């Protein structure tokens, strides 16, 4: 399993990298910061703005 996981940015709609277990992540396309929740250990999801 890779540690490179991705979530979709709600601002620019691109997928950005989220590290395993990370609670807050920044979109590397538009710089938006998001709170992250985990559907399962391999699937991050944006919960809301950080």
């Amino acid at each position: 399993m890779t540690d490179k996981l991705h979530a979709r940015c709600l601002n620019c709609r691109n997928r950005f990298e989220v590290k395993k277990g990370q609670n807050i992540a920044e979109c590397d396309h538009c710089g938006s910061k998001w709170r992250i929740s985990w559907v399962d250990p391999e699937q991050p999801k944006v919960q809301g703005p950080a």
Partner: protein
Amino acid sequence: MVLKRKVAFVDLTKGKVVYRDIPKELRLKHLGGRGLNWYYLYNNVPPEVRPYDPENILAVGAGLLTGLPAPGSGRTNIATKNPMTSGVGDSNMGGAFSPEMRYAGFDHLIIRGRAETPVYLFVNNGEVEILDASHLWGMDVFDTQTTIREEHGDEQVESLVIGPAGENQVAFANVMTGIKNAGGRGGTGAVMGSKNLKAIACRGTMDLDVHDPEGLLEYFAEINKRAYSSRWAKTLGRLGTPLLYDVSSTTGFIGTMNWQYNTLGEDGKPLEAENLTPYSIKMVACFGCSVHCRHRVKIDKGKYAGVFGEGPEYTMMGTFGTLVGCNDWEFVIKGNDACNRWGVDNLSLGAVMSWAFELYQRGYITDEDTGGLKLEWGDQDAVLELARMIVEREGIGDVLARGFKEAISHFGEETGYYAIHVKGHPNLHTDERGIPSFSLGIATSTRGADHLRSRPAIDLFQLPEDFLESLYGYKVSNDFTSYEGKGIMVWWHELLYNVVDSLGICKFQTVFNSPTSPKFEDYSKLIKIATGLEISKEDLMVIGERNYTLERMFNVMNGMSRKDDYPPERYFNEANKRGLPFMKGRKLDRDKYEKMLDDYYAQHGWDANGIPTEDTLARLGIEKPEKNFPEVE
């Protein structure tokens, strides 16, 4: 085999039932479920019949693949003339009713007339009995089902029932089954109540013979894995439909305080999907589904301690959340339980209640109208009390229970501006004004404002345009704020969702929120293996178009046309006040909307007024209505 299931024509006035085979040519033209239901409605309910007249029909249909190994194959479709729009009234529900109806020998029940006293139908191994339901009248949704099971001494009896809302003919009453499966939208519960029909109970042990059983199991395993392994399905199985809240609230397309705003913003954080988890005992599923998208919830302490139920779905987060300025999960769970027991469509209830709150805010409704109830945003007790008054048709609730059209006449035409509906049908709490494809979808939906007839939810994903072209067969923009190609997108999803509803499959397991989920070509293969019928992908698209056009013609016969295909006026006049930067300030452009509507009509082969042309009707084999409800003596 599968195709041997029958249709029962039930005349409640005469207390008689007649059984007929379903001709193969009807299957090839309409499949089953929603498609065949509307074939019977189109032919047997002329415009002069009003929704609560005994001559109106309530049609209950199982899909062609219902009860078989197919993704989410437990769906039931219910059709009638809509008390809110006088056009298409159509509900689609999960649970396990339709599989049981098929095991009892029937694919469709076509019900007309009105019983003198309350009755219920018992459908069992090839027979339909009409039984007394006087003792059930007045019971809520849960007690009705429990009592029927006890009386038949069989825990496997599945029932469609109405609660107090249906008995009282609240225009947006549901037909219900199980704890929360709702045949919502379209007023089907109100029509059922008008017929003095309290329930339809089914129990069957007749085998459903499959054309190629081994092939079906093998293909189902493959297709099910694809449906279940999508990101969408995994998230749905973890958080349920409330997962939609996080994206809609953050982006700013969630109706708030009757669509005056498009998100609660920071104040809405308590309602995030993840915050429902502490109340969730487990996730449960409908018949034939491996996604398990429904929470079973319980509140242990506090004001609403002891409340137990299933859901709440995303829709309920508007009704008892954003639409009325509340942000408390426990209140949403409490409201969910009340709606499920009453058997009322929470989406419509939310739109109607939040409209009343805004009218109170603006002074169109006063304490005198409400009997002293103060409709102030965020007041949970006021929200719940107004809901009760609507269901029990008490005071102002009696006016609101008639639906938007009559209520607007009562309070004054000016108040209609604040009513968020299309064709008289209340909207889900989505705020579509920043998303043209969603706006077109709610505006042209045959049952009035609705998100489940054509919403291209994948429009939000900014998928590559070459992928979209391969999916839709045409070039469309992947920018969800654009109007380009969105008429085609809506058309394609109308066809797909109609086919899915006619097969008896769940929309959450097709191309709704996941682009990789099963679609036309997969269903073509499933149909062949299950029934032996050869229906290609292209054939299925034509069937979807035929069925949708039949519904359109039902609306046209009842006076609808282009004038009825517009989203709420507020969407054109007031820009979004909140949300992410690209959503803030956005509203619908009238000229671009008109062009998008033209494109949509052209794609369907309808004229500039939205009427299907003679050529289109001929191409689809749609003839003039001809009554075919058998004479019942």
